[in-house]
Every structure is written in structure tokens, then in C-alpha cells.
């Protein structure tokens, strides 16, 4: 067969102002390219919008699921742990004690589970078009904040009902919301990447989330633990988030203190390591999913 190939390309001068993309093999740890993620912020917005929009499509209860989940868990906890077991609740009524923890917890748990499945669920797209992959789990987690707001409004209603006025600590609340967000994203990033490789993760995550709930001071106060164990408890970043929420909103007497510092460190470490791990494995997504 006769073949001919064009002579080796003669490099010419490219047009100066055009954006240039360099494609080459990436090895090892790579930069996060947050600038690129920023350039794709509109796509991120559309992903969040899509996730919020379709979350409760074809359900009878619709968005009320966002409230039913934590509310019913609160009722069950109040009955079994509050009434029957008589677990102490830091001098606030048990229902609001557990609900104020369940609001950030439900956000975390849903965000974690959904972020873990986000890459696999969007595999079709990942195989067909390029965009910063970080947008996928990030959008999933951020879309969950919509549910969080709804559940939080109910919490405000409950505070009104129980006659609890927030103390000055409440100015710290945004910090704890951010901490919940960072934790969810950090854990979600790790598990979303592992899920691409091993679908076992799909089965592990719901189980892990359940175990994690009982390892977090939701049904009971962390004040049950003596120091220094209480500070070490902060290694579970959600312990810091939950105790912080209570302290900021309900003014529980035991200020969380060192536990928050430990939780914040762990949470940030999870996010940063998760993001780099994600970027390192990213190039394999299209080939493996």
C-alpha cells in the first residue's frame, strides 16, 4: 500500500492573543487550577441549579423531605434517648438539643453520600466533554445547602417555640456552617474518587454515614467526656461542627473551645488532601468510569 505523510510540521508563529491550551501527560501531584474552576463558575452554577431542581422531582412530598428527614430523626431521638434513656442535654430541651445537631448533620450526611456518587452518576458527561472535574462534587455539596436552609428555618421556629434567644455567640454561626461545608466537601472528594475505582464505596458510604452519626455528639452531649478526651473528640470534625452549632445558637454552657480548633484543622486537612488527591486521579476518570 502506498502511503505518504506530510513533511514534519514547520513551526509557525501562532496568533498572539488567542488562548493557548497545552496538552501533555500529567504526572504525580498537580496544581489545583482554581483559576480554571473560577473561569467555569457559570457551569458550576448550572450544575448546582440542576441538582436542586431535580432532587425532589417525581416525589410526592417534594422539598418537604429536606425537613422531614431531620425532624423525624429528632422525634425518634427524643423518644428513645431523651425520654427512655434520659440522656442529658446540656440544660436545653432535648428535642431542640438534638435537632440543632441534626440540621448540620443531615446536611453533611446527604452531601457526603451524594458527593461520593457524583462522579459515577456523571460518568457519561465526564467521558464526553472537558470541564474542571472538581465542579461535579463541589456542585453536589453546594446544592445541599438549599436543604440546609429549609431545615434551618424550622430550627428557628423551634427556638421560638421553646423560647430560646440566641446569645452573642451566634456571630460564630457562619463559621460553623463553613466548617460543615468544608468537611462535607473534603470527605466527599475522597470518596467520590475512590468510588470511580471501586464501586464497593457505593455500599460502604451509607453504612459509614450511619456509624459516623453515632460517633458524633448528636443524640448525646460531648460534655459527657472528660478532658483531654473531649478535645481529642474533635478529630471527628463533625463533633466540632455540631457542638459549635449548639453553642452558637442555644448558648450551651460548655463553650467548645479546643475541640473546635482540632476539628477545624482536621477538616481543612481533609479538604486540601482530598482536592489534591482528586486532581491527581482526575486524568484516569474518563478511562475507568
Amino acid at each position, binding site marked *: 500500500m502506498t502511503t505518504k505523510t506530510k513533511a514534519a510540521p514547520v513551526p509557525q508563529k501562532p496568533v498572539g492573543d488567542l488562548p493557548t491550551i497545552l496538552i501533555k*501527560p500529567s504526572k504525580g501531584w498537580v496544581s489545583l487550577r482554581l483559576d480554571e474552576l473560577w473561569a467555569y463558575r457559570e457551569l458550576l452554577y448550572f450544575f448546582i441549579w440542576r441538582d436542586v431542581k431535580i432532587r425532589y422531582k417525581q416525589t410526592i412530598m417534594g422539598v418537604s423531605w429536606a425537613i422531614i428527614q431531620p425532624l423525624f430523626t429528632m422525634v425518634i431521638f427524643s423518644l428513645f434517648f431523651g425520654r427512655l434513656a434520659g440522656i442529658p442535654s446540656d440544660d436545653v430541651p432535648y428535642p431542640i438539643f438534638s435537632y440543632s445537631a441534626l440540621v448540620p448533620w443531615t446536611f453533611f450526611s446527604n452531601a457526603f453520600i451524594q458527593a461520593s456518587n457524583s462522579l459515577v452518576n456523571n460518568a*457519561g458527561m465526564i467521558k464526553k466533554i472537558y470541564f474542571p472535574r472538581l465542579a461535579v462534587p463541589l456542585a453536589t455539596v453546594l446544592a445541599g445547602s438549599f436543604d440546609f436552609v429549609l431545615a434551618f428555618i424550622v430550627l428557628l421556629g423551634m427556638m421560638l417555640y421553646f423560647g430560646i434567644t440566641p446569645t452573642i455567640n451566634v456571630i460564630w454561626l457562619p463559621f460553623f456552617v463553613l466548617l460543615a461545608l468544608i468537611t462535607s466537601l473534603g470527605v466527599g472528594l475522597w470518596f467520590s474518587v475512590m468510588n470511580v475505582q471501586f464501586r464497593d464505596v457505593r455500599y460502604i458510604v451509607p453504612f459509614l454515614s450511619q456509624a459516623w452519626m453515632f460517633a458524633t455528639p448528636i443524640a448525646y452531649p460531648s460534655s459527657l467526656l472528660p478532658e483531654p478526651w473531649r478535645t481529642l473528640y474533635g478529630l471527628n470534625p463533625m463533633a466540632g461542627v455540631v457542638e459549635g452549632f449548639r453553642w452558637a445558637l442555644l448558648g450551651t454552657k460548655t463553650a467548645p473551645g479546643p475541640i473546635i480548633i482540632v476539628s477545624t484543622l482536621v477538616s481543612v486537612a481533609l479538604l486540601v488532601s482530598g482536592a489534591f488527591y482528586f486532581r491527581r*486521579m482526575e486524568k484516569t476518570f474518563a478511562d475507568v468510569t
Partner: protein
Amino acid sequence: MSIAILAKDLGKEYRIGGPQKTYDRLGEQVVDMMSAPFRRAASILRGDAAGAAELKKRFWALQDVSFQIDHGEVVGIIGRNGAGKSTLLKILSRITDPTVGEARIYGRVGSLLEVGTGFHPELTGRENIFLNGAILGMRKTEIIRKFDEIVAFAEIDDFIDTPVKHYSSGMYVRLAFAVAAHLEPEILLVDEVLAVGDVAFQRKSLGKMSEVAAEGRTVLFVSHNMGLVQTLCQRGIVLQEGRIVFDGGASESVECYLRTLETMGQEDLTTRTDRQGAGEVRAIDLTIFNGENQATSMLITGSPARFEVTLDGWMYGMTCVLTIFDHLGRPVTKFQSDVQGPDDEINPELGHKFVCEIDEFLLMSGNYRVDIWLRGGDEVQDYVQAAVKFDVETGLLRGRPVRATPVNPVSMLMPHRWRTPE
């Protein structure tokens, strides 16, 4: 002219599943299954993703690919299945990394590897236009500006606020293509997305593509449709087994590609590796018989013919499709076993064999090729292009001589009768 795309020694290595392990005893299998997680965990810790999935065999989907494309060029990428066309497009679209080499792209890139990427069935047409547009890299303001145009192009005005899950497949595809067609990057990478919708819409899409090509934008276009490559592109790059074997004019590249197909028809089917599908069952032979029951590579217009496809196994719901292409690579006709007629016969004595009988072979003289497509167990098992080639000689069609004419050559005949006054 300035450079749009510059590729230097691009290569992509894939690791694919090695041969299935066989176990003599159940015990062995259990031990293997139990120890697998630990082996895999060890691989993950080493950061070796593919190894973790126990993918052993390696092959190069693309090798030593270098080329330069200038702004304004419309280039067709052609080649057989598994020649590396899609891999090349995926690398240039940044979906996957090359294993070696590098490429530089100067300008905004839009890539269309499929239409309707990211479409969500629960969202309305309007919502999907925005979502899909954003995924393709359009700005929100740009989508708003082109919105009416997109809707008009898709011909779905009345259904724009209906969830797309209620759309017919035609409407869905039209909307998806309409969004893609309004993408306006400097460089467009396209993978056979034109073969969508009904004939009228295909023509419209083609018109749009020619428009794009005429506007002086750079287009890289992967296709199996040789006619399209010849009409749309000025230049063609032919890939074979991951390497560039030809880079030149569109018509010459199509000729080159068809020659590579010609050499294939004579190969033994069992040795062919350029096939697709799950491969649990594969075609191992395709033999053509003439009216005298002799195996042949020459059929006669108007006479009977028989195609026999032998498989190396069988599975539930096995079906076979034979597609005949003419020498220009245009599909002419196909025989489908999954659509049944009253004359079909089920005969277990055939073993692993599909037999397709044709009473009157109605193609004009010329040379043709046959693609085999096998489906079973709800997935494509085997797809071989140009499994066999054959010639057709003119003969008699129901007693009427068939005459090939150089003016308006046709490939298809119909039995007919004339009524004339004299």
C-alpha cells in the same frame, strides 16, 4: 495562515483486561476473591489506579501522531474501528491525557463527542438548552442571545417548556443538535454527531456544518461517512492501528482508507482484532454461496445468494445484522435477523450459525463489502467492518438483461415491468 493545532508525537496507551482467570476448584476461586481486596488495596496505596482494577494487558491506541492544522482548515479524520480516531479526539478535547507527546491548541475549543451531553430527562427543553450550553462552554449571555435561534432550529417551539423525557427521540436529538450547532468556538472538534435525526433534519444539520466550515473556522471531523468527508473537508488524515498512514487531500485520503478496507476482506475473520463489542460470542466465518450452492466471492444480479455467518458460541437473544456497503463506503442495504418475517425459519440443527437466504440478489455490478453486527445478552457482542468482500456481475433479472450504464450509475435494481404502446 497561523497554526490552530499542533500535535507532536502523541501517544496513548491503554491497559485492558487480561484473559479471564479460570479456576479448577471452587476453593481456589474463594481464596482469590478473598485476597483480591488486599491486592487492590496495595495497588491503590501505590497510586496505581488501573493496576488496582487488575487491568494487565496494554496496548497503544495511538502512537507517534504528529500533525499541524492551520486556522480555517476543515480536516476529516478517518480510519477503521479501533484505529484511534476517537482517542485522538478525546486527547485534543482534554477528556483524557496522552501517555506521551504533547499538543498545543491556539484558540477557543469546542468539542462535540456526542450531542446532548448532560441533558437531563426531568428538565424542560428550555432548561436543558441552558445546562447543555454551559456544559459545551457557552456563556449564559451567549445562550440567551442565541436562544430563539436554537429553538427555531430544533423545530420544537410548542414543547420548549415540556420535560425532555416526554420528547420523541427525534425531538430530543434535534434539540441536542441545535444547541451544539450554535456553538461558536474558533476550533471545533466533532465526532460523527451528524448522523442524527430524520433525513430532513440530517440535511439541515449538514447545511449548518458546511456553513461552519465555510465561515473559516477550524474543524476536525471524525467520520465513517466518506461522502461527507469529501464534501466538507479539504484535507483528510487516515489513521490505521493508531498511526497516521496518510495526510493529504480529502479525496486521496478517502481512496487510501477504502484501500485499507479492501485488503481486509481477504483476512481470516478469526485473526481480525479491529473489532468492537463484548466479545463473549464472536463471528468466526462469513461465507457467501451462489445459486449453485458453491462458496464464492462473486454474485450475479438477479440470481439467488446465501450468506452464512458462523459464530464461536451462542447466547440468549442472539441476533445478526449484515450491512452491505458499496465501493464508496456508502451503505446500500442490510439484512436484520432481529426483525422477523413469516418466511423465517428456526432450525436448531444449524448449531452456531446464521443463514440469510436471498432469492433474487438485486445489486448492480460492482464491488461491495459486508459488515457483521452481532447482538446477544442485551449487548453488542461483535462488530466487524468489511468482514468479507464480494463482486457482483450483471445477469438477468426475471429474464431481463441488466445493463450497467456509465451515466448515473446505480447500485440497486427492482424487478419491474413496462407497458408501452408499441
